[in-house]
């Protein structure tokens, strides 16, 4: 088993100017061959403006390109369809120079008009894109409609100028999101609502076959603009497969990567067998599992009570429940996220200390409350562990185990005093600390229907967050990260969350799969980066 630690080195690379480095492909990589990837659920859509689940995210990445991209296996930005970019001194105008000669799968050359069309489309309310909000800093976003974004201008066929209404340090990450993928207007018009089934992009692969409920076949794009990749001739996705069965098929040599990972029931068996464990790659993930404490519901309106709950939870035991596939968390940000405060201990497990804090808050005898949880394994078991930990300090938590949609509804409505986030926890959309704040800890999310289930809203922290996000100058990255670190430590002082653990990723592969380990725990392509992996036989 090889372990890839999300290291300080990773954070440092992010501090370098974005264009500084690129990827050196494996010299041993051989082109050709095909791999089989399995999933339990059918793929919802391959429309980059719509697709927003962890399953289609990496598929869409391989079919489409945006102006920005990441160095494979890392969170380092690199240019995609843009050859270069320049930022104006006031931090408000980005000028992107496009790569010449890039062709869509339909053979037409991609131009600046396509970039504008794609950004107009994703922000047009008629598209119903779940990612539209990411583009909120582009000028004219609020008036976006059929007329398009006033902030996006085509200067010449290979130059696009994007004007922002406010400086936005995360903007290049936003341009690397799938939602910013460049699509050809004629293909979207021809397919209409079915574009998600008939995708046309500039990506490394093109969709060759999709039999609903059965399989999808991605075929190598021979005209791909990045030289030398992809290596594979095709990737076959078989859907509707139970994870346990996918593992059996992998052991039988029929499957190369089980997309849903190693099923919990088989985890110990696999890891105990050296031959199989050797083919499991472990890596960090931009994920935090947490308990929200609704600060508007007594007695969680008292900070002492919230701190007491933080001290009452035995995180190590909860990590054991999920076979040790996580590390205990001390703060909202996961360790591999820039802005993470190394050395911050958070609230240590301390039952007596927790009781003392409850007494200080005037609830020495404890109280009764509800803990909402999603009803799929292992979440109810984790909720039981939380329930027992709380009982030890006198808090009686009744578990409300519900379907995901119902928990999200209760969280948004603010009717849930406590929620265990498992199954709905935050996984970053892009590797930047701001992505963990706005919707889930900021005032903007603390509204009816928002994702800030603690309903925590601190104007001073919000102001700091806004200040951090306006520091778009690449030279100020370190200052910006320090500011974000302050914001999250400020959040912890008020304890609206109990950060419980940061999940790690375990990707299993067949013996014939090649490519460095980082590609199998690629932070932005789950389960693997299809463009760069190869087969050795």
């Amino acid at each position, binding site marked *: 088993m090889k372990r890839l630690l999300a290291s300080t080195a990773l954070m440092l690379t992010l501090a370098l100017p974005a264009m500084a480095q690129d990827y050196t492909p494996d010299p041993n990589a051989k082109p050709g061959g095909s791999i089989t990837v399995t999933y339990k659920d059918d793929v919802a859509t391959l429309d980059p403006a719509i697709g927003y689940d962890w399953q289609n995210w990496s598929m869409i990445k391989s079919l489409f390109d945006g102006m920005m991209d990441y160095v494979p296996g890392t969170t380092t930005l690199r240019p995609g369809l843009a050859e270069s970019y320049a930022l104006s001194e006031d931090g408000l105008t980005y000028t992107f120079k496009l790569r010449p000669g890039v062709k869509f799968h339909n053979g037409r050359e991609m131009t600046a008009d396509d970039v504008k069309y794609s950004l107009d489309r994703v922000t047009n309310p008629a598209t119903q894109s*779940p990612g539209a909000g990411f583009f909120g800093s582009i000028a004219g976003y609020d008036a976006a409609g059929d007329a398009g974004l006033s902030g996006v201008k085509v200067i010449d066929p290979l130059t696009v100028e994007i004007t922002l209404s406010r400086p936005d340090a995360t903007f290049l990450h936003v341009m690397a999101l799938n939602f910013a993928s460049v699509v050809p207007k004629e293909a979207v018009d021809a397919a209409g609502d079915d574009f*998600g089934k008939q995708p046309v992009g500039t990506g490394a692969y093109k969709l060759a076959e999709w039999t*609903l409920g059965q399989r999808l076949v991605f075929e190598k794009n021979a005209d791909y603009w990045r030289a030398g990749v992809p290596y594979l001739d095709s990737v076959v996705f078989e859907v509707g*497969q*139970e994870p346990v069965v996918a593992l059996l098929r992998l052991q039988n040599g029929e499957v190369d990567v089980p997309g849903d990972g190693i099923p919990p029931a088989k985890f110990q068996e696999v890891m105990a067998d050296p031959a199989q464990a050797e083919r499991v790659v472990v890596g960090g993930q931009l994920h935090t599992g947490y308990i929200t404490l609704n600060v508007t519901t007594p007695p969680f309106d008292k900070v002492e009570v919230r701190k007491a709950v933080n001290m009452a939870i035995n995180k190590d035991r909860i990590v054991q429940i999920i076979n040790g596939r996580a590390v205990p968390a001390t703060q909202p940000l996961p360790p591999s996220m820039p802005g993470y405060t190394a050395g911050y201990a958070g609230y240590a497990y301390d039952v007596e200390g927790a009781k003392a804090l409850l007494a200080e808050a005037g609830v020495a005898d404890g109280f009764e409350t509800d803990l909402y949880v999603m009803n799929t394994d292992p979440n109810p078991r984790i909720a039981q562990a939380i329930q027992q930990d709380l009982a030890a300090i006198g808090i009686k938590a009744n578990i409300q185990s519900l*379907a995901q*949609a119902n928990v*999200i509804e209760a969280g948004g409505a603010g009717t849930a005093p406590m929620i265990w986030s498992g199954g709905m926890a935050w996984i970053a959309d892009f590797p930047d600390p701001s992505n963990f704040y706005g919707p889930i800890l900021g005032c903007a999310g603390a509204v*009816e229907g928002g994702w800030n289930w603690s309903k925590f809203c601190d104007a001073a922290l919000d102001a700091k967050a806004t200040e951090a996000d306006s520091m778009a100058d690449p030279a100020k990255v370190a200052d910006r990260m320090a500011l974000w670190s302050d914001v999250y430590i400020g959040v912890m002082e008020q304890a609206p969350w109990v950060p419980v653990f940061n999940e790690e990723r375990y990707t299993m592969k067949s013996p014939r799969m090649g490519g460095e380990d980082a590609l199998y725990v690629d932070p932005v392509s789950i389960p693997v980066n299809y463009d760069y992996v190869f087969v050795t036989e």
Partner: protein
Amino acid sequence: MPAYLLRRLIQSALILLGVSFITFFLLYILPADPVRQIAGRSATPQTVENIRQQLGLDQPFVVQYWRYLSGLVQGDMGRSYLQKTEVAELIASRLPATLLLMVAAIFCELLLGVTMGIVAALTRGRLADQALMIGSFLAVSAPQFVVSLLLLYVFAVKLGWFPIGGYGTFAHLVLPALTLGLLGSGWYSRMMRSSMIDVLRADYIRTARAKGLGRSRVVLRHALPNAILPVIAMIGIDIGVFMGGIVVVESVFGWPGIGQLAWQAIQRVDIPIIMGVTLVSACAIVLGNLLADLITPLIDPRIKLR
């Protein structure tokens, strides 16, 4: 007969209308918002409202239901909220697999269940009967997931006789059909046994035996057609169960049936798909029962449809 058929068809239409109303209403009052599923976690309140308006989900219940019904009578089941694909296309793509598995499974259930039931009835109280009844009890109480995996492990992984899941050839069909057949045969054998025991006590059986007919002829020609009536009614119900989808067996064997579609839609509050699948399976139950009722007089001429 035509009058009977007409009456039954009108009844069926009313039942389907009722099912559509109840399902639509339950989904309407469900404390889960489909718009939030579509909008995702990064959406602004404005985006959420926009989507709600576009889908007409801001309208009162009656308006929403009326719109759905008007679409439905024109053959439009709407588009999936999340996939944007036509519901009719999604269901149609799953229908062949569902029907194939249903027919094969019912065939296995009948073959196993009816045989077991007859043998048990004929050996009533003896060892064979007891063994069969214990077997049928185990079959009805065995969890689908365990049995499916067990069969898959033994016959596909270890022995390699069948592929490890998938769809397309006869070999792919055997294990899922056998799993469902084995599990369902428990119900059929119990039903068949008790019905057969009743029939074997009847006067006409004694007469048949008295006039010197052979045992197999008595059982197959005289007893079976009478004893099988309740079993046929049960097939009607079974059709509905299979059309609603057999999520567990489908997912273990990677069978692209309607159950997986329904399950995913429920998880994601994709109302048009949930409505579509519910109505298709309700249709199947209604039709299955109608067919069972129409077949009955062919087997037992004493029964008249009025």
